[in-house]
């Protein structure tokens, strides 16, 4: 059969949709679907909120169109179908000394999803966003297939990269891969005792890959403490990982309650010795640490969770510290919190990155979480920052319009590419990204 009626969610599981979903296995089936019953494309639904949802409508799941179409070992350009995952590409090409130039925090993200969210990775401060490493994107609409490049189709390209799938179905892309030394990675971990030291370590890092884990429960003098990881790829032999484990059921609420998280975070912080340490790991362990536990989102229980991720300009570091104070006081945060310095790199009108600091914190979907996030959103907007649409499920149209000054250019390009609105999703409706009557 072509269609399957499914109730599904984004990775955060806080928002739900029921849609008719088709999963074409061949390009010819996709062409037929777009002509007869078009809808927005979705991948592995690893965005957290409603970017992949189309409640009451249709969606085309692209995960079976996942083939490598061509690779040039001279230039490192890989032509790949949109359903291929970043993790598979990394595993298959790292032994040949090539990696996707930018890799998000999960290897399950598809190429199409990485483009549509213009994702960033732990090397953003040097290499910028995913969309900056594309030679071309192939888009399909009911009118047919079209290959677009940043040079020849500037507006459409900028509305597609970071554009949440509104300009058409991304069927394939040419990725400019990056040379690496091999499929292992050397990771140096250092403790940052407080906020100031954490920022200093991030500011001074010269490593290719840098990220800070932050203890979002620490208060007072310890506020902002964490572990800064710096890494470089290398060549060598490390034992392969055991098979991934999975979370077989929704965890009860106390699993991530405040005292448990506090204990966990303290232990996690202290596991790195005071003087720091250097480890050698398979690359996937460093880039996709949580992929080792399948369905880890079930740890948050049935109600799911929200991730708040924002970026603020460098000069707004004090405001970001205030936001962290609010989070620590609220006592709702989970162990998963990340601080990172970003560079300027972005490739689309609606791309998230700006030069500054980005903070990402998970909140179980309960109690005051939504109010705290609303407060954080206000503080972020006042600090001249923006929230990440790939993670968001709570922001309002008015504040997103302020955070994304190029929204009118985006809406204009989308209106031209998809005048009938066939690729509209729940996120686009909620945030009124296409403009016009809300």
């Amino acid at each position, binding site marked *: *059969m*072509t*269609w*399957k*009626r499914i109730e599904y969610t984004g990775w955060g599981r806080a928002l739900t949709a029921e849609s008719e979903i*088709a*999963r*074409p*296995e*061949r*390009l*010819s*089936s996709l062409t037929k679907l777009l002509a007869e019953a078009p809808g927005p494309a979705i991948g592995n639904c690893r965005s957290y909120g409603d970017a992949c949802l189309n409640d009451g409508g249709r969606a085309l799941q692209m995960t*079976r169109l996942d*083939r*490598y*179409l*061509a*690779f040039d070992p001279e230039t490192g350009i890989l032509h790949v*179908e949109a359903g291929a995952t970043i993790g598979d590409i990394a595993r*298959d090409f790292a032994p040949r000394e090539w990696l996707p130039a930018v890799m998000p925090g999960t290897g399950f993200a598809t190429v199409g999803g990485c483009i549509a969210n213009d994702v960033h990775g732990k090397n953003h401060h040097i290499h910028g966003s995913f969309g900056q490493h594309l030679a071309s994107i192939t888009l399909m609409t009911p009118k047919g297939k079209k290959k677009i490049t940043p040079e020849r189709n500037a507006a459409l390209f900028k509305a597609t990269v970071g554009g949440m799938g509104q300009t058409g179905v991304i069927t394939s892309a040419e990725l400019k891969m990056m040379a690496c030394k091999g499929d292992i990675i050397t990771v140096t971990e250092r403790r940052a005792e407080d906020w100031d030291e954490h920022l200093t370590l991030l500011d001074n890092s010269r490593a290719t890959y840098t990220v800070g884990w932050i203890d979002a429960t620490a208060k007072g003098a310890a506020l902002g403490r964490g572990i800064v990881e710096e890494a470089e790829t290398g060549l060598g032999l490390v034992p392969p990982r055991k098979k991934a484990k999975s979370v077989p059921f929704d965890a009860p609420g106390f699993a991530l309650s405040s005292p448990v998280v506090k204990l966990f975070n303290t232990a996690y912080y202290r596991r790195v010795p005071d003087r720091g340490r250097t480890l050698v790991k398979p690359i996937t362990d460093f880039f996709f640490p949580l992929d080792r536990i399948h369905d880890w989102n079930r740890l948050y229980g049935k109600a799911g969770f929200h991730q708040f991720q924002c970026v603020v300009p460098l000069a707004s570091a004090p405001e970001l510290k205030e936001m962290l104070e609010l989070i620590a006081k609220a006592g709702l945060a989970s162990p998963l919190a990340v601080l990172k310095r970003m560079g300027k790199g972005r490739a689309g009108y609606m791309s998230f990155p700006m030069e500054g600091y980005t903070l990402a914190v998970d909140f179980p979907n309960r109690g005051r979480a939504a109010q705290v996030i609303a407060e954080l959103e206000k503080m972020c907007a006042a600090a001249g920052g923006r929230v990440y649409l790939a993670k968001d499920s709570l922001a309002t149209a008015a504040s997103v319009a302020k955070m994304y000054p190029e929204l009118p250019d985006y809406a204009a390009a989308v209106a031209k590419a998809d005048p009938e609105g066939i690729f509209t999703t729940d996120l686009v409706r909620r945030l009124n990204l296409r403009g016009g009557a809300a």
Partner: protein
Amino acid sequence: MTETWIILGATSSMARALARAVAARGDGVLLAGRDMEDLKALAADCALRGARVAEAIAFDARKPNGFKKIVDRAAREEGMISAAVFVGSMPPQSEIDADPALIEGTVNDSFSGPAMFLQTLAPLMEERGGGTVVGVGSVAGDRGRIGNYVYGAAKAGFHTYLSGLRNRLTRSGGHVVTVKPGFVDTAMTWGIEGMFLVAPPSKVAEDILKAVEKKKNVIYTPFFWRYIMLIIRHIPEPIFKKMSI
């Protein structure tokens, strides 16, 4: 040892998973089917995963005069020649009830076409003194049921054919694995109600390769279907004929 696989019905997701798995170990793949655009994409994919040779080649189970050409192409490769058959068609039983002529095509796609192909290939395999035939049948072939007994009958015929072919190829060092998949997550089963314990195509490919290495004769994949079918086959006919499972 050098090995080249002819994969019939290579556009199916189970076939794609097997093609990728043998490509990754450096075997050659000749990808046979009807949708040439799709097969070419798969050939590129297999080549990039390590296949020694990867080519798209036209195959239509209903056009036996094209079979010889595929065998001749395989003969140009050195070493062992193996084949994996994933073709078959399963029109809804209600459509067959309305138009009995559909039986011919179902039997052709699921049994006589692939059997004629394998019959054309067998002498080459005997000459090389080895190789494996993977024949994908179905649990539906284990007992005729009201829901899809024409498809089931065609697959049952194919199972019997494979058993005979195994008997023949063993003499020259070859082997035949009969694969009976249960519910697999493919375009064929997508959205059909009542599916349970659905296996991903990659799991089926993994099971097939293990069976090829261990020279198993008949496998169910996932394995528990052996027991499900054991029960279903042993329900006494007076009771079974009144059931609709």
